């Protein structure tokens, strides 16, 4: 009980943090539901482990959840009440906590800002907030109960029929709700509808991964996978421009993450300059589709009697070129670093990424330097812009659709590679280069292939990114792109394909939902990453092998759920 109380204190600290960074101001009317969902997820995360180990019953789970919710809720009410009394007295808190303003507090209590300013908040508003959070705690406990027999029945103890189906049906229910929210005339959540809907899309896509995992391998998994794919492919038509633009960047990063996953996750080569290949893909497509924006190329073409005004290659015919150029880049990076391992490799690749960016910045004639390459052509469908075919698909949605398809192709290739001889060789090389060599693995070839294939995927993603951005500049390809790609693999689970998707959703999608508190997101992610590395170093959805590496005490467990998952994908 004391431990549960302490967890409640931690929950309160997190809620306080979110308040101090002004999240309620941003979420306005949706504050209470969002905070409740966050708290429920938190309760779920902390109770899941203990429930699994001790076989806690439903009653106990609810009790613990309620206690956490009550502690967090009541303390939050006291805190908000304290701030409100200060604000009501006209005390300026802003110099200390710049986000503690009436608007923020009002959003928290779901009342109007004027009420706070006049100090007229009724006790009922406070009671509702506390009730919301207490219920959220209970919901978190319920969630633990409902999911524990869900995931492939791997949890010890209670097996409740039907709960597996809860996990499987959840994404579909969410997608249906998203569709409903998008209908004209539905005004639920008011002004915040767009943000909430985006959050729901992220959650639905993520829960789709868990649904796939909960499905039995074989026909059931195939059917559910196919249904999920259909729903996902419908999304670009249903979402608005803003939501599509967030989701397409998420899936561009899925493509990139899958590529980096090959280099880092499979082959164990820590590459911090991965953005270089992304940049190469983007610039190659920019050169061929908008030759006029590069002074050198347009002069060259004019000299040859070709007009630089029209694209040299269309989007689809440029794909092989972008991929090939990126692959060559991968090999060029690979050759000098063949003998390097670990830290040294990381430093050299880091340098390589920067070199490519500096090239883009300083080869003014070719790349137009910091002024960038402009008016890059949009992908077409057999020569027709999709906007001309349907009014339901905007430009960003079209890119989103292509990103989903690209991710699917890349994921398929990655899965097949993982199961291939080459995949085996990568794993062996990651484990021990000397022994790998002794078992007859050609190290040079294996390493270069990892770099080249990883780079190819990044090139593909870069090309789509260039089309998405229309105008690209060297600063689009900073070190942070590499860091993001690496972080999403680590969060999701190194070496795991569902993990990459989940990581991209969390790291590229969530920050967009929290746009209003943007300046805190780096700090938030730093904390998140540190906590992750301590609590769950193998990532959220790790590959079976990775889990074994980091939790050797579980090593005797025979086949684990993820192995089934990956087998099912293949």
């Amino acid at each position, binding site marked *: 009980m004391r431990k549960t109380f302490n967890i409640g204190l931690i929950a309160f600290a997190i809620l306080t943090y979110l308040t101090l960074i002004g999240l309620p101001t941003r979420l306005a009317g949706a504050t209470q539901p969002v905070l409740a969902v966050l708290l429920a997820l938190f309760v779920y995360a902390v109770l899941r482990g203990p429930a699994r180990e001790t076989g806690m019953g439903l009653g106990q789970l609810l009790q613990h959840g309620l206690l956490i919710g009550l502690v967090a809720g009541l303390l939050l009410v006291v805190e908000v009440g304290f701030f409100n009394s200060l604000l009501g007295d006209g005390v300026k808190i802003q110099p200390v906590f710049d986000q503690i303003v009436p608007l923020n507090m009002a959003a928290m209590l779901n009342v109007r800002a004027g009420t706070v300013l006049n100090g007229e908040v009724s006790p009922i508003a406070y009671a509702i907030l506390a009730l919301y959070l207490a219920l959220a705690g209970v919901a978190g406990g319920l969630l633990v109960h409902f999911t524990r027999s869900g995931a492939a029945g791997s949890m010890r103890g209670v097996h409740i029929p039907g709960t597996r189906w809860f996990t499987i049906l959840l994404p579909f229910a969410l997608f249906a709700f998203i569709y409903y929210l998008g209908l004209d005339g539905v005004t639920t959540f008011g002004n915040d509808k767009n943000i909430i809907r985006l959050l729901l899309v992220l959650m639905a896509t993520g829960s789709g991964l868990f649904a796939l995992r909960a499905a039995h391998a074989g026909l059931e998994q195939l059917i559910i996978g196919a249904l999920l794919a259909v729903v996902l492919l419908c999304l670009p038509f249903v979402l608005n421009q803003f939501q599509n633009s967030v989701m397409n960047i998420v899936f561009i990063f899925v493509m990139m993450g899958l590529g980096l996953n090959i280099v880092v996750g499979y082959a164990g080569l820590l590459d911090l300059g991965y953005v270089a290949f992304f940049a190469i893909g983007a610039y190659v497509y920019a050169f061929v589709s908008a030759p006029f924006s590069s002074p050198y190329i347009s002069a060259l073409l004019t000299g040859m009697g070709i007009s630089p005004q029209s694209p040299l290659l269309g989007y689809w015919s440029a794909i092989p070129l972008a991929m090939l150029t990126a692959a060559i880049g991968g090999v060029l990076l690979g050759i000098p670093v063949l003998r390097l391992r670990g830290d040294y490799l990381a430093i050299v690749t880091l340098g390589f990424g920067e070199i490519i960016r500096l090239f883009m910045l300083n080869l003014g004639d070719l790349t137009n330097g910091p002024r960038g390459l402009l008016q890059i052509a949009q992908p077409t469908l057999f020569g027709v812009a999709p906007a001309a075919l349907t009014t339901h698909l905007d430009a960003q949605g079209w890119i989103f659709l292509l990103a989903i398809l690209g991710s699917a192709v890349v994921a398929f290739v990655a899965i097949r590679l993982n199961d291939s001889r080459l995949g085996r060789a990568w794993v062996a090389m990651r*484990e021990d280069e000397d022994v790998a060599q*002794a078992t*007859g693995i050609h190290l040079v070839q294996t390493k270069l292939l990892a770099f080249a294939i990883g780079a190819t995927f990044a090139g593909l993603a870069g090309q789509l990114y260039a089309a998405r951005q229309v105008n690209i500049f060297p600063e689009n390809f900073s070190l942070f792109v590499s860091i993001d790609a690496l972080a999403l693999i680590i969060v999701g689970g190194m070496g795991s394909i569902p993990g990459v998707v989940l990581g991209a959703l969390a790291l590229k999608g969530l920050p967009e939902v929290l746009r209003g508190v943007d300046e805190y997101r780096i700090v938030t992610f730093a904390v998140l990453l540190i906590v992750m590395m301590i609590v769950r170093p193998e990532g959220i959805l790790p590959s079976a092998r990775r889990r074994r590496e980091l939790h050797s005490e579980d090593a005797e467990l025979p086949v684990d759920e993820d192995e089934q998952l990956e087998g099912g994908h293949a």
Partner: protein
Amino acid sequence: MLTLENIHTYYDRIHALKGISLTVEQGEIVTLIGSNGAGKTTTLNTISGILTPKEGTVYLEGERIDHLPAHTVTHRGVVQSPEGRKIFARLTVQENLEMGAFNRNDTDGIASDYERVLSLFPRLRERLKQAGGTLSGGEQQMLAMGRAMMARPRILLLDEPSMGLAPILVEQIFQIILEINSQGTTILLVEQNAQAALQVAHRGYVMETGTIRLSGEAKTLLEDPQVVEAYLGF
């Protein structure tokens, strides 16, 4: 079967092997004994292609194999079980064994060798799904040898199989070496445990600071006063 002629191998400027010549005949167990730093492992690494000799030649059944990269040497049936039980610690026992057959395509042959290895090392069968790194020292050594056997070597290079093992396990390992040999695999065995090695081997070479000091029948070496004094420690 395997012949080394006047091999000189360097680590940068350090002259590690100073003209090693030795032969291993088909079906033999030949042991290479000597103290720390004598160049035993360097000799094995030179044969398996991890190191390239600066001078001299290595012949496998009349064909030169020095200057071939390590993975192609494995293709030709020269398989090394590295020193210090170097297994893939995070792969399962089964995956480790499968990695041994990396260069083979004959599914049936692999399956039969897999069974053979598991019958040679029954302990491994009990631990197939366990990560290699969680095995005991003796089991890891068995795994390293089993993995090498999965490549169906014509000549097996064993580097210090008894290192760091309890005496009872050492005895077991040497029993298995004899068994592998009796099934037709030629073995070049590097050992510090000279006594045990000479007892199972047909012939032996005694190395000292990069040169071959003595060679001969294992039985003769066991009784050679110089060997007894320097390596057997009576």
